[in-house]
């Protein structure tokens, strides 16, 4: 039986492009397509973030208030400066990477290894900074209370500057003794209240300080300047809200609560920066592997430093994603 396929004139060839289609090696081209798919993954996350933000456009937390810490400058309000510094660190490590790639083109083993080492260090500083950001966000700063509907109420003085819970709430009697470390079983947690203060203690402290007001998470647009700020309640409205609608104390942020506003904000922050941080971490591991390969002379013997270039593409991609995360989480 004649089952042969009609001849197309390409027999004996791998495919039309030969072994180097698009004039890029197989590995480099596939790294590009992996990066494309990874870019689509990150876009999916960021677009979902945008979706949720547009859904709750009037009550989204203000990033400047959430991320305003700077190392060794405790208590100063430094919105965004630390993330800006992190951006410079990551762009800097991108530069050392591209210098390593360039040195590889000139088969300069010494320079390649030196620049790769700098890149690894830059990556580690970045991941460390990310961890520090997480720590600040998880611990929170002022504390707040949440309502039955899951909204956040924050405390301010009469002028509108924020007041922390510990400034006006005192810890009262505790009916139960928490288990000490040497009494519990390792998986048992004993935290009957779940926060430093109970809601009744907050009410008491609030009633005793006539200067205090409550700020809701609803954003209002100033008709004159067009700037938006959170809604401030009067003393009477504040008392009414706190005594009738507040159900619990929130300190810091986790996947189910967020003292700065919508818990969704915290969910997306942890997920997207966590996924990005994981990329940075894996990039550091790849960089370390090729760093040792460079030292061992693997690429010298191979006659080409293309592996540095391929891992470099991945590393630049991580920087590229950060540029977008920086814009959409901190600036916009």
């Amino acid at each position, binding site marked *: 039986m004649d089952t042969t396929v009609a001849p197309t004139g390409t027999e004996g060839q791998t495919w039309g492009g030969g072994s180097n289609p698009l004039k890029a090696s197989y590995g480099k081209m596939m790294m590009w*397509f992996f*990066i494309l798919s990874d870019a689509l993954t990150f876009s999916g996350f960021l677009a979902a973030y945008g979706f949720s933000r547009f859904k709750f456009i009037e009550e989204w937390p203000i990033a400047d208030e959430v991320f305003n810490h700077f190392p060794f400058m405790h208590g100063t309000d430094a919105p965004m400066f630390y993330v800006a510094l992190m951006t410079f660190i990551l762009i800097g490590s991108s530069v050392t990477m591209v210098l390593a790639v*360039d040195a590889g083109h000139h088969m300069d083993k010494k320079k390649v290894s030196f620049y790769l080492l700098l890149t690894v260090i830059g990556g580690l500083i970045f991941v460390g900074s990310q961890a520090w950001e997480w720590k600040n966000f998880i611990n929170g700063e002022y504390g707040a209370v949440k309502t039955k509907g899951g909204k956040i109420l924050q405390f301010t003085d009469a002028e509108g500057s924020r007041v922390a819970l510990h400034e006006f709430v005192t810890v009262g009697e505790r009916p139960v003794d928490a288990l000490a470390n040497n009494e519990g079983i390792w998986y048992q947690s004993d935290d009957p209240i779940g926060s430093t203060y109970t809601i009744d203690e907050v009410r008491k402290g609030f009633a005793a300080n006539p200067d205090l007001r409550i700020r809701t998470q609803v954003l209002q647009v100033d008709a004159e300047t067009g700037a938006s700020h959170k809604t401030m309640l009067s003393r009477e409205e504040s008392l009414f809200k706190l005594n009738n609608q507040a159900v619990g104390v929130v300190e810091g942020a986790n996947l189910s609560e967020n003292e700065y506003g919508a818990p969704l904000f915290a969910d997306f922050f942890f997920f997207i920066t966590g996924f990005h941080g994981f990329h940075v971490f894996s990039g550091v591991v790849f960089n370390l592997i090729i760093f040792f390969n460079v030292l061992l002379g693997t690429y010298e013997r191979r006659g080409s430093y293309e592996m540095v270039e391929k891992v470099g593409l991945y590393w630049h991609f991580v920087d590229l994603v950060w540029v977008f995360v920086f814009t959409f989480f901190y600036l916009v």
Partner: protein
Amino acid sequence: MADHAAHTDGHAEHKLEIFRGLVKFKSNTQKIWGVLIFLSLITIVEVILGYIKPDSLNGHILGLKILNWIFIILTLVKAYYITWDFMHMRDEVSGLRRAVVWTGVFLIIYLIAILLVEGEYIYQVYKNAAVSFDF
């Protein structure tokens, strides 16, 4: 010898012009530093704008603040130079460039447009509809 290696590893000469030929660097290393300075300048502008948040940029165009448009455009500019010069997309053949960039740009615009329109619609239902959970 070094030059010989640069030519045989399959890598064509680097294109050393940026800004459509307005700036031309003498070597690839010099171009890298030039692009770093440019990217840093953009980041500094972004941080200054984000810190001051000038009231004059609070107007809206297409449902988004002018300030936010500026941030997004500056981000795309940064992304372009990272991809073109750090990732050497400028030196690749146009087929590879289009296969990667056009695919990504098309799908991302599509995804963002659909999700943001839907988000805005849900916001309107929550806010204005007679039954706030009836979509």
